[in-house]
């Protein structure tokens, strides 16, 4: 057995993750830590310049509330988010992010991010809340500011160190443990507070692709459930674990549709040219009071499209050519119109090249010129994210100053954006019930949580107590797949087929098949039921037992082992929560055929859950939805 060195790092604040939320946390924490003589440490499984969901870049900033213009209020944003999530949202968290996000966007511009401006110097809006950017290097720029902040405050960052488990003692989070994916080292971080920002979970469900395109998920395949596992296994209460996000995107390569819908005002139709949003409008009555709000909730738009798909009216098309023609036709002068067409063409391609280059390849490979013919769109596979129109994540304390007399006892316990585990904070895709934060709001939430974590550290200055015996046991558990492989590899002539172990790729396929067929994945048209879920959970229990037989040949494969364990816990929480909520509330995300309608009387409530790592038992908890704006 190869020997591993154990490296112990002591810090005041530990930031787990390197994406938008973690970078926001690094900047804000460093600012306050510098003044108070504290140390901040960030640990990332990849390289910060290109880690997280914004690795490729983005063509828009999707949350800019523009409060300073006087056109929008915090209440407007809360209304938008509450309706989009069919009433299930924490307005205190949503408003907290919304009141800080503009400041974060203004900082991005100061750090060098090109934001589109019109001839009068105003930002170009894609939609009411969205700004257009030249965002190829969005993440590089944001990471640069984070690294510079850490350097100025005497902090540290580690890249290519993969965090597997939280360290929790007596109900307090005291750090994290993981390993280097480059050298034989286990890392133990001992921290007074820990901020979880390791992204969402992709590849819990089977994607549509079958071969090489497996990695072309809409959200990145390296978002592998680390945040969910960390908070679940640390004993934190979780929320909205039943809410998965299924975006509708250009088919197969999953290129963005936002610019086409919002900026170019394109229409989506079925194969016969029918507008499903109009033709299926009667369905909206079933999902009131949310069905008829404008804009229609994302899951309801999905649902009206899926109805057409289920009726055999596919393919569904984005009418790109008609949209471009309409814009050009509105310009009377032919020369001006041609110039505008050229601009639109560049904008359309940049939209892909900034954030989903595969879509540009697919259009080029299918000879698609968007001004000449329409393009197919389709619902992706289910993802777990705390942002966008998703909501899954840890259950957090809100800020004190946004509570009302009615909400304070439920939604506030001392530090903004802290989980129910003392000293464990969460932001971005790790935090639940605060949807529509996107890249900019995730950065803002990282900042909010970081400042609160620094305040927590000042109030709790005692050194974290970490039990060395527990760390040793965890280290052995973390490295076990390497040992399993070494011990048993000689038993067969093919290292992939061995009755003594399972390799992480097959383990992931097994998880995905269970979720796809029993929990409402792509091949079941997102439909499930109590009986299907119960059977799925039986099969998941076998998988959980087989975790003990995971095998890894290399450090890379060891990371894959733990990524898939992380995904499995997300899957477990998901199935239990769908089963617990006895209704269908987001028909375009999942449909419970045994409970086919929405039940506002009983289920306008949060479905929370909590895992006990000692016993392996789950507790399901119903918590009231309490609004602040109404």
């Amino acid at each position, binding site marked *: 057995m190869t020997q591993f060195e154990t490296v112990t790092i002591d810090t005041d604040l530990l930031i787990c993750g390197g994406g938008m939320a973690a970078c926001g946390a690094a*900047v*804000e924490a460093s*600012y*306050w830590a510098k*003044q108070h003589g504290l140390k901040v440490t960030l640990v990332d499984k*990849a*390289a910060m310049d290109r880690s997280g969901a914004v*690795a*490729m870049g983005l063509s828009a900033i999707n949350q800019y509330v523009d409060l*300073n*213009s*006087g056109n929008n209020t*915090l209440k407007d944003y809360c209304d938008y988010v509450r309706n989009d999530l069919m009433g299930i949202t924490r307005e205190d968290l949503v408003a*907290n992010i919304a*009141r800080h996000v*503009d*400041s974060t966007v*203004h*900082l991005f511009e*100061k*750090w*060098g*991010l*090109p934001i589109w401006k019109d001839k009068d110097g*105003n930002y170009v809006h894609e939609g009411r809340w969205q700004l257009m950017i*030249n965002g*190829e290097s969005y993440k590089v*720029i944001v990471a640069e*500011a984070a690294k*510079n902040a850490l350097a100025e405050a005497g902090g540290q960052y580690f890249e290519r160190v993969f965090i597997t488990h939280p360290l929790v003692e007596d109900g307090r989070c005291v750090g994290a443990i993981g390993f280097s994916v480059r050298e034989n080292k286990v890392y133990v971080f001992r921290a007074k507070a820990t901020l979880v920002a390791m992204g969402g979970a992709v590849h819990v469900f089977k994607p549509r692709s*079958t*071969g090489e*395109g*497996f*990695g*072309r*998920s809409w959200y*990145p*395949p*390296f978002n592998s459930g680390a945040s969910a596992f960390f908070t679940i296994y640390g004993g934190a209460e979780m929320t909205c674990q039943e809410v998965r996000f299924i975006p509708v995107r250009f088919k*197969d390569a999953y290129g963005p549709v936002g610019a086409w819908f919002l900026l170019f005002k394109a229409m989506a139709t079925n194969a016969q040219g029918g507008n499903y949003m109009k033709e299926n409008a009667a369905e909206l009555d079933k999902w009131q009071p949310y069905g008829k709000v404008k804009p229609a909730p994302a899951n309801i738009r999905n649902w009206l499209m899926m109805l057409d798909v289920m009726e055999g009216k596919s393919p569904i098309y984005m009418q790109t050519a008609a949209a471009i023609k309409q814009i050009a036709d509105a310009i009377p002068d032919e020369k001006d119109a041609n110039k505008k067409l050229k601009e639109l063409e560049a904008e359309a391609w*940049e939209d892909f090249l*900034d954030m989903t*280059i*595969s879509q*540009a*390849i*697919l259009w*080029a*490979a*299918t*000879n698609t010129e968007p001004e000449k013919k329409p393009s197919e769109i389709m619902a992706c596979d289910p993802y777990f994210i705390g942002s966008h129109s998703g909501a899954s994540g840890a259950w957090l304390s809100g*800020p004190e*100053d*946004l509570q009302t007399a009615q909400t304070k006892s439920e939604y506030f316990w001392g530090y903004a954006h802290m989980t129910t585990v003392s000293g464990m904070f969460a932001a971005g895709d790790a935090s639940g019930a605060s949807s529509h934060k996107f890249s900019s709001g995730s950065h803002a939430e990282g900042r*909010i949580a970081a400042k609160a974590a*620094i*305040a927590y550290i*000042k109030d709790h200055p005692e050194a974290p107590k970490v039990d060395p015996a527990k760390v040793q046991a965890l280290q052995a558990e973390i490295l076990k797949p390497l040992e399993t492989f070494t011990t048993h590899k000689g038993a067969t002539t093919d290292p992939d087929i061995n009755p003594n172990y399972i390799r992480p790729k097959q383990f992931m396929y097994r998880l995905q098949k269970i979720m796809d067929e029993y929990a409402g994945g792509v091949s079941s048209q997102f439909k499930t039921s109590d009986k299907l879920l119960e059977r799925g959970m039986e099969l998941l229990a076998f998988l959980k037992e087989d975790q003990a037989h995971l095998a890894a040949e290399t450090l*890379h494969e060891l990371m894959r082992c733990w990524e898939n364990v992380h995904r499995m816990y997300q899957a477990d929480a998901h199935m239990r929560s769908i089963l617990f909520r006895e209704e269908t509330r987001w028909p375009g995300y999942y449909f419970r055929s045994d409970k086919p309608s929405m039940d506002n009387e009983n289920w306008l409530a949060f479905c929370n859950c909590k895992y006990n790592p000692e016993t392996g038992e789950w507790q399901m908890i119903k918590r009231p939805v309490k609004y602040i704006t109404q």
Partner: protein
Amino acid sequence: MPSYVIPDKCDGCKALDKTACQYICPNDLMVLDKQTMKAYNQDPAMCWECYSCVKICPNQAIEVRGYADFVPMGASVTAMRSSEDIMWTLQFRDKTIKPKRFKFPHRRGVQEGKAAPFTHYPTGDADLKSPTLMGEPASLNTERGKIKIDKVLTL
């Protein structure tokens, strides 16, 4: 293979302290074969086609071939990234369609490495328990806004 390495161009980043593509890949896919001193993608089916390796390669030795299970052959999208702009060249499968070339900015006004995290706006108070984040409330405003926000808003 989604990203693939052209052997004649890859020099294994011998002159650098680390292999650039291996350093940057967000999914830990690019590895250097120490025998041949050439890099390769160790698990193409886990590739997001994010082009991070393509953009960082000092020798332009990495390109992307669309996922073979759903992308027809013959098209290409290549990237050339400089310190402030990125240039894209798109070749269609049908070679009678004129290739497209676009140049977009990706950074403006701040030299690479020089993003100053703390100094753009004054911070209103030093109270760790207040909702005021670094640079607020000044950073909540733009010069063109109609409203002047002088403290962090509440509902």
